[in-house]
């Protein structure tokens, strides 16, 4: 009763506060007060997002090296951009990245949606199964990287033994991380294992958002389950699926930690995704200007693709 009266008092006071009260109390207009509140956020945003971005753009046109702060900084114009865009090694890294992004996103989406569809049926114990399925995405990528390095070990790794058990091959006759043909798939498998639950979660939210009465109406119209899936489930869950694809696509485009731990970009440069190339240029070779240009190219690529995609997503949503 006391609590109720206390909250009533607060609500009453709030209702009594009229526009312009700040001016009367402190001599500040509401607009000034609003600016006062958001200024720290804007300053923080400028300091940690906008300024570094502008600075990176500036550095990308120079020969600056962070490990040689005393060396003269020379303006190079678009030299770095030209050399990056014509460098076959960079294109090779982009191809590796594209392979990784496309396959992981496709497989995660298919399996993730499938799992979400099953979990949505609310069978007995589905809560426990949901929790179990979600476990991999709760782990740190560093842990997952190390963990799968052991699983892929040809002599003692469980993965090789399982494959050997089903195929009859010698377990140590193939190496997932050391083989040129297998290693790109080895990193795809780990990413799918880790992030499919995430896609499932988003798809599940989509499926749960479909009102039951639509299915009931379809049942009344004697629509088959297959017809219901294609005409109701998939179109209505599509914006969520597309959202999952967007998140995973962006995330995997800049994938670094897991691949670095699993293969370090090897064998050779077989799994050297763009972010590993970038890291090597920036923090091992200390080619700050070059790596700034590379980072800007990657940023523009992701930003451009994401924008096109978001427009498509909005179209789907507005249908």
């Amino acid at each position: 009763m006391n609590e109720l009266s206390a909250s009533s008092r607060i609500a009453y006071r709030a209702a009594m506060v009229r526009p312009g009260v700040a001016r009367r109390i402190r001599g500040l207009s509401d607009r000034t007060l609003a600016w006062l509140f958001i200024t720290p956020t804007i300053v923080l945003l400028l300091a940690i997002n906008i300024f570094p971005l502008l600075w990176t753009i500036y550095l990308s046109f120079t020969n600056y090296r962070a490990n040689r702060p005393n060396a003269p900084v020379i303006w190079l114009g678009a030299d770095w951009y030209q050399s990056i865009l014509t460098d076959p090694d960079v294109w090779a890294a982009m191809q590796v990245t594209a392979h990784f992004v496309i396959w992981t996103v496709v497989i995660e989406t298919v399996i993730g949606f499938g799992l979400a569809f099953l979990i949505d049926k609310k069978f007995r114990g589905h809560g426990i199964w949901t929790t179990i399925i979600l476990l991999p995405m709760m782990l740190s990528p560093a842990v997952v990287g190390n963990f799968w390095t052991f699983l892929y070990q040809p002599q003692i790794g469980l993965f090789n033994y399982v494959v050997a058990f089903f195929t009859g091959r010698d377990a140590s006759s193939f190496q997932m991380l050391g083989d040129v043909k297998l290693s790109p798939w080895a990193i795809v498998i780990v990413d799918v294992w880790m992030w499919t639950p995430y896609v499932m979660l988003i798809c599940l939210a989509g499926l749960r958002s479909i009102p039951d009465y639509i299915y009931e109406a379809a049942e009344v119209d004697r629509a088959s389950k297959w017809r219901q899936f294609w005409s109701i489930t998939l179109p209505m869950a599509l914006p969520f699926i597309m959202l999952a694809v967007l998140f995973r696509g962006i995330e995997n485009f800049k994938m670094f930690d897991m691949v670095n731990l699993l293969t370090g970009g090897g064998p050779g440069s077989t799994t050297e995704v763009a972010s590993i190339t970038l890291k090597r240029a920036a923090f091992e070779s200390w080619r700050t200007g070059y790596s700034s240009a590379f980072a800007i190219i990657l940023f523009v690529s992701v930003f451009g693709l994401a924008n096109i995609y978001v427009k498509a997503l909005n179209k789907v949503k507005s249908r």
Partner: protein
Amino acid sequence: MRHALKALVVGCGAAVSAFGVGTGTTPAQAQGKTITLCWAAWDPANALVELSKDFTAKTGIGMKFEFVPWTNYADRFLNELNSRGSLCDLIIGDSQWIGGAAENGHYVKLNDFFKKEAISMDDYMPATVVGYSEWPKNTPNYWALPAMGDAVGWTYRKDWFARPDVQKDFKAKYGRDLAVPKTLDELRDIAQFFQGRDIDGKKVYGASIYTERGSEGITMGVSNYLYDYGFKYDDPKKPYAMDGFVNSPAAVKGLEAYKDLYKCCTPPGASNSYMSEGLDAFKSGQVALQMNFFAFFPGLYKDPNVGGDKIGFFVNPAGPAAQATQLGGQGISVVSYSKNQGEALQYIKWFSGGDVQKKWWALGGYSCAKSVLNDPGFASSAPFAKEFLQSMGMVVDFWAEPAYAQLLQAEQKRVHDYVVADKGTAQEALDGLVKDWKAIFKEEGKKF
């Protein structure tokens, strides 16, 4: 009330002081003087911690240590130096860093200090002075005191070599006795002989060699073959002229031989092996031969499963053109951003002492001081001491230029692409390496 508070503060202060004295606070802690030494996390670092207790006892200066695993060592500490961090007062930096660290002002130049304290570089093994202290090379400009001598060597399973059945099989196959290899061809035969062999019911493999891609592993490994086959970094008469030296026909053969060893005689899954993977392979009884730095040999000798009588050591065998080995090891430097340079220099002075150097060796560190290495009893002081001495007489180091990291990355990529990923030919790999290195040196403003 104010008096009561004051009394309480004074009382607490007295109690803390009394407690401090009572628990044996070192003079250093009492003075608040503590310096931080940065190095890699490995066996010799533990020996240095033990050794440094004497320094604290003698000077009252406390020691803190920042040790980072080898795979992150360069990243971590070069970042620290490049950002002008003062985390490290002393740093035991890799030999290849010396050019960049000197030119970028990360290390304190030690010439005046050496002169004042009568520390002479003539008292250290020449290879270690050139490798760890000098920049530019072969000039009397010193940026470090040689601290930890090291080179790549080999270990082998002495107990397997001694087995009559193994010896008999080897002789039948190769027509000679199974013994420590003197040439790289002999080493390959031995590795191939053990590859897939059954020893006490367990399948074993030939050799563990360096193949790591991410940092410096495969370069540190392949160099031992390249040098022996005739590879040179540049024309001795014309610095930075690399055509025909880096990619000479002999060097190409050396690279092919290393790939051959990798393909024929390493355990499955050894496509990304460096120091720790080599140790694991040897300690778990998987391999007959192991390529690794001497720094690990004291620990291996003490290993209860493969150490003692079961392990033997040998220097990198000779190739068709030479017998050389990759230099490892580091010098100890004072970081120019340190606020405790005086104390750090005191440490270097103490560390250069004859008795300290003797104890350093005894604890498992590799002294570079002639007083230790030229001692008549040194060669017999440890089962690997003779091989270490021999190796230090034939070491070659990678580029120590300020752009060493870029140069290293280029070799890592080219060699790994060829050896592990089967991309292209050895000739293409080394031609590509020359092209990469030329581009880097051109960017550095070098003329060749």
